């Protein structure tokens, strides 16, 4: 009798662990399927919405809890350039201009999904504080070391590296508040900044 109970407990535990592993895997696969790619940027179109799939809701709960619906704000995330995960030993260049939204911002997040500690206390640029060229366009440099112009500092996250869930060191999130129809109707082709890898040390 005792042996049977122990067997049942062990089997239940194994099933729960396996279920958690399957869920973690399916969250990644499911989100990929529910995501829309726009160059290297990725957006999930149902974040925060009541019609979101349970897998997406779970992912949102882990990575973007209390997200708004896309009519209110849209989020485009970038964690890799040309398939290569963003690295702290590399320098990236973001080229952009203005976008059809009430306002926009680009924020760097650590592997723990929180703002990255840095001496400058600078975590983002937005349409008001970005330094522009004469034609209104702008360039942001993302790097761990100080850069001239619009420098978005990155560095190790507040959480230890063993808590990393992805293969990237940090990622970028572009928020468009009250986005225009181009983003709502065709998020895969609406205008977004271009991110390029400049150099790695």
């Amino acid at each position, binding site marked *: 009798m005792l042996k049977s109970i122990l067997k049942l407990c062990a089997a239940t535990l194994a099933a729960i662990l396996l279920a958690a592993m399957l869920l973690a895997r399916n969250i990644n696969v499911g989100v990929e399927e529910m995501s829309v790619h726009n160059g290297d940027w990725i957006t999930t179109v149902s974040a925060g919405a009541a019609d979101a799939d349970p897998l997406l809701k779970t992912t949102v709960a882990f990575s973007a809890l209390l997200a708004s619906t896309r009519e209110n704000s849209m989020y485009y995330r970038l964690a890799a350039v040309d398939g290569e995960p963003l690295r702290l030993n590399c320098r990236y260049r973001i080229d952009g201009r203005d976008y059809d939204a009430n306002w926009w911002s680009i924020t760097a997040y650590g592997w723990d999904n929180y703002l990255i500690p840095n001496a400058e206390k600078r975590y983002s640029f937005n349409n008001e*504080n970005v330094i522009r060229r004469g034609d209104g366009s702008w360039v942001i440099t993302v790097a761990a070391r100080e850069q001239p112009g619009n420098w978005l500092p990155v560095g190790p996250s507040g959480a230890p590296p063993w808590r990393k869930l992805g293969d990237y060191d940090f990622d970028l999130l572009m928020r468009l508040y009250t986005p225009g129809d181009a983003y709502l109707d065709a998020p895969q082709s609406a205008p977004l900044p271009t991110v390029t890898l400049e150099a790695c040390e």
Partner: protein
Amino acid sequence: MKLLKWLLAILVAAWAGQYLLAMVAPNLIMEGVYFGGAKQGGYNQLVVRPVPDETARSVVRPSPDLLYASCLYNLEDGPIVIEAPIPERYWSMQFYQMNTDNFAGITNQRADSKRVGSVAKVTLISADDDPANYQGEVIQSPTDRGIMLLRASAIGDRTQQQAALDASRCGPL
């Protein structure tokens, strides 16, 4: 043969279990946020948060370009009222139930830009309450508990936005 049966049972249970986990995980995470927030600010009252920095942990992926204020509501003892002056720049009031669904919201954008300069007064009632019993703007929460989040743009001069959040309130009717 017996071992195979056990393994098969574990696999089937795990396959079904992942969907059960997916259904309960958002609620569990929201419960964590709810009780964590309640320890800091209590229920049915507005907590205006400082502009997020690297130490902010109350919201996942906080925006350093937004001002936040939140109210963890509990309607078991009756409706609550949320009053919030609506500033000129981007502002929103969003309601989340305990499974993370964003079930209602008000903004000062698009067709609602006419709200700028007014004070939003929302009566939040439970699912079994009758909206006809209340006047003005009434929102029915699908669950007795949830989170109301005020967001306001913090870019540029944030004086008016900060003042609007500081003057907002959330409390019993």
